[in-house]
C-alpha cells in the first residue's frame, strides 16, 4: 500500500512558560498530546479538526506546516518527515502543503496591491513562462471562483472586503494546486452573508484540483457543512473521529455530546431544553490530570477514567472514540 498523504504519529507539543530570570517557576503546558491521524492519498477529503479554544488545533496546524517542531512524535508527508522536507525541499513542500489563515487582514501588506499575492505565487513556483501567461492564469482562476478580476486587480487590501480577501487566498490555491491545504478558521472573521460563498468555493476546489484539506474550526455548524470527516480535540487529545454527519448526529464521546448539545440552532422553535453546567477547571488544572482528559467534567465518569488514558478505538464502522464507556470494544481491540 502507498503511504498516506499525511500521517501524524504520536505528535506531542509542550510549551514552556515562565522561567527566564529564574524568578518565576517554569511550567510546562502540553498543548498537543500524542495525536495520531492520517489523511489518505487515494481520495480527497475535507477533514475538520474541531476543538474549543486552547485545544491545540492551531498548534497542530503550525507543526504540519513546519513552522513549529513537535516535542516528540513524527509528522510524515508522503512518508517523509516534515522536518526533512522543510530542511531539504522547502519549496516543494510549500508548493504541496498550503495554508489559509484566520485573519484576512493580517496576511496582506497594506502598501501592496492585493493581486501581488497571486503574481508572487506564480513567479515563485514558476507556474507561467511569460508575464502574459501569468496574467491570464490569474484572471482565469479568479473567474473560476466567481470573482470579478476587473473589480479586484490593482486594488489595495483596504478597498475590498474580508470575504474577498479570503477568496483571493483560494484563487492562490487554485493557481498553486497543492495536494493539501490547512485552513485555520478561514471564515470566522467574515460576515455570514459571505461565509457560505467561501465554503462553497472550497468544496469546489477540492474536486477541481484534487486537494485534501484540514479544516480547523471551533464551529460545529461549519464543520458539519463543509467537511467529510472530523476529528474532535479536547485539551490536546483526539477524543473522537469519524464521518462528520453521523458523528454530529450521534456523537460517541461524552465531550462531543456536550459540544453538539451546545450548538445554537438558528431556529427559535428548537431552543435548548437542558441547561449547561458551570465550566469548572481552568487550563492548568486540566493538564495536571491523569487519565481521561474529560474525566473531571464527564457525567459518566468511572474510577478507571481517573487512572488510565482511554485508547482511540473503532466503536462503529469508520467511527472511533477514546472513552471507557466502550470498554468491551477496547478489550476486544487489545486482545487482538
Amino acid at each position, binding site marked *: 500500500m502507498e503511504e498516506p498523504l499525511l500521517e501524524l504519529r504520536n505528535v506531542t507539543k509542550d510549551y514552556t512558560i515562565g522561567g527566564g530570570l529564574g524568578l518565576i517557576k517554569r511550567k510546562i503546558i502540553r498543548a498537543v498530546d500524542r495525536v495520531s491521524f492520517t489523511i489518505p492519498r487515494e481520495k480527497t477529503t475535507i477533514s475538520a479538526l474541531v476543538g*474549543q479554544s486552547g485545544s491545540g488545533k492551531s498548534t497542530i496546524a503550525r507543526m504540519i506546516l513546519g513552522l513549529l517542531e513537535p516535542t516528540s512524535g513524527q509528522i510524515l508527508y508522503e512518508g517523509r518527515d516534515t522536518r526533512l522536507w522543510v530542511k531539504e525541499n522547502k519549496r516543494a513542500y510549500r508548493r504541496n502543503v498550503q495554508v489559509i489563515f484566520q485573519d484576512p487582514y493580517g496576511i496582506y501588506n497594506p502598501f501592496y496591491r492585493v493581486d501581488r499575492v497571486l503574481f508572487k505565487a506564480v513567479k515563485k513556483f514558476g507556474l507561467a513562462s511569460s508575464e502574459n501567461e501569468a496574467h491570464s492564469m490569474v484572471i482565469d482562476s479568479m473567474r473560476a471562483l466567481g470573482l470579478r478580476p476587473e473589480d479586484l486587480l490593482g486594488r489595495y487590501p483596504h478597498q475590498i472586503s474580508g470575504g474577498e480577501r479570503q477568496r483571493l487566498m483560494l484563487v492562490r490555491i487554485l493557481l498553486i494546486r497543492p495536494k493539501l491545504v490547512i485552513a485555520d478558521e478561514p471564515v470566522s472573521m467574515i460576515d455570514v452573508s459571505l461565509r457560505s460563498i467561501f465554503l462553497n468555493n472550497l468544496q469546489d476546489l477540492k474536486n477541481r484540483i484534487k486537494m485534501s484539506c484540514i479544516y480547523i474550526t471551533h464551529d460545529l455548524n461549519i464543520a458539519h457543512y463543509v467537511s467529510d470527516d472530523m476529528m474532535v480535540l479536547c485539551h490536546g487529545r483526539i477524543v473522537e473521529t469519524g464521518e462528520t454527519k453521523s458523528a454530529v448526529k450521534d456523537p460517541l464521546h461524552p465531550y462531543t455530546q456536550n459540544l453538539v448539545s*451546545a450548538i445554537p440552532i438558528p431556529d427559535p422553535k428548537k431552543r435548548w431544553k437542558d441547561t449547561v453546567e458551570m465550566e469548572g477547571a481552568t487550563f492548568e488544572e486540566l493538564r495536571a490530570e491523569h487519565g481521561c482528559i474529560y474525566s473531571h467534567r464527564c457525567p459518566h465518569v468511572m474510577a478507571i477514567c481517573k487512572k488510565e488514558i482511554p485508547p482511540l478505538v473503532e466503536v462503529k464502522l469508520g467511527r472511533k472514540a477514546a472513552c471507557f464507556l466502550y470498554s468491551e470494544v477496547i478489550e476486544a481491540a487489545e486482545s487482538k
Partner: protein
Amino acid sequence: MRAVTPLSWEPILQVEDLRVYYKSIYGEVKSVDGVSFSVNPNEVFGIAGESGCGKSTLVEGILRVIRPPGYIRSGKIIFRNTDLISLDEEELRKIRWKELSYIPQGSMNSLNPVLRIEEQMMDAMISHTQISKQEAKEAVLSGLKDVGLPVEVSRMYPHELSGGMKQRVIIATAVLLKPSLIVADEPVTALDVVVQKGILQSIANLRDRYGMTVIFVAHDLAAHAEIVDRLVIMYAAKIAEIGSVYNMFGDPLHPYSKLLVAAVPSMEKEVLKGIPGLAPSPLDWPPGCRFHPRCPYAMPVCSKEEPSLKEMKQGRYAACHLLE
C-alpha cells in the same frame, strides 16, 4: 413609526429617528441613520446585522456613551418618559448602572488585573449608592451566585478565571444594582460554544428572575434564535425589519432578512447560499433602498426612493418597496 406596544404596556425604551454620525476627513460617516423602535418591559430585544451595519454605534448612541468624532445628530431616546438626549452628564451618571446598565463589547478583558473580583464589584456599588461595605459585599456574593459562579470567585483575581467566568463576572457586575434595562453588546462573541450557551442562559435567567429588560446585540443569528423575543435586523445603518423572533426565522419579510437567515450555517441545511455583492460604504450609502444593489428582487423604484419602515403585518415592520 408607531410604537410596537401591547395595549396594556408602556414601552421601557423608545428610540425615534435616531441618527449617530462620525466626522471624518472624507466626510460624514452615517453609522446610524434614522432608526426607530421601541423595547417592551421584560423582553429580550435582539439587534442583529453584519459588521459595519451600525449595531454597536446604535447602542452607544442610546446609552449616550458615544465619543468624538462620533456624535448624535438628531433623534429621541425616551427611557421611562425621560429623553436621554436632554440629560447632562451628571443626570446621566445617576441613572446609569442603577437604571440602565451597559456591557460593552469585549468588556471581559477590562477587569482590573490587580484587584480581587469582589473589590472591583464593590467599588462600582459604593460609588453609585449609599450602601455600607458589608451590604455591598453581600450583594456581590449573591450577584455571583445569580450568574452561576461559586462564591470563592469573589476572592480571586481576573487571571485565575477563564474567559467565560470573566464574562459572568462582568454580567454580575452590570446587574448588581438591579437595573431595569441592560444593554449587552456581543457578550458571547469569542467564547466557546459550551461557555456561550451558559452565558446566554444566565442572561435569560436574570430576565426571568428580576424582570429586567435586555437589549442583546450579536451578529450571530443562531444566538438570537436561542434567547431573543423580538429581533431587529439592521442593514447599512437602517432597520430592515423588526418582528418576533419566530416570524423572523420562520417567515422573514425583507429580502435581506430572508437571505441572511438562509446564509446561517445549521445542521439542518444541506446547501447554503451567500448574499452576492458587497456591503456598501457608510461614507456613501447607495441611493434609494440601501440593499438594492445586492437585492435579487430589486425594482426600478428601489434605486430611487428610500422605503420607510412600515407595519406590514400585525407587529411586524419592514422597509421594502416589494411589500407595499
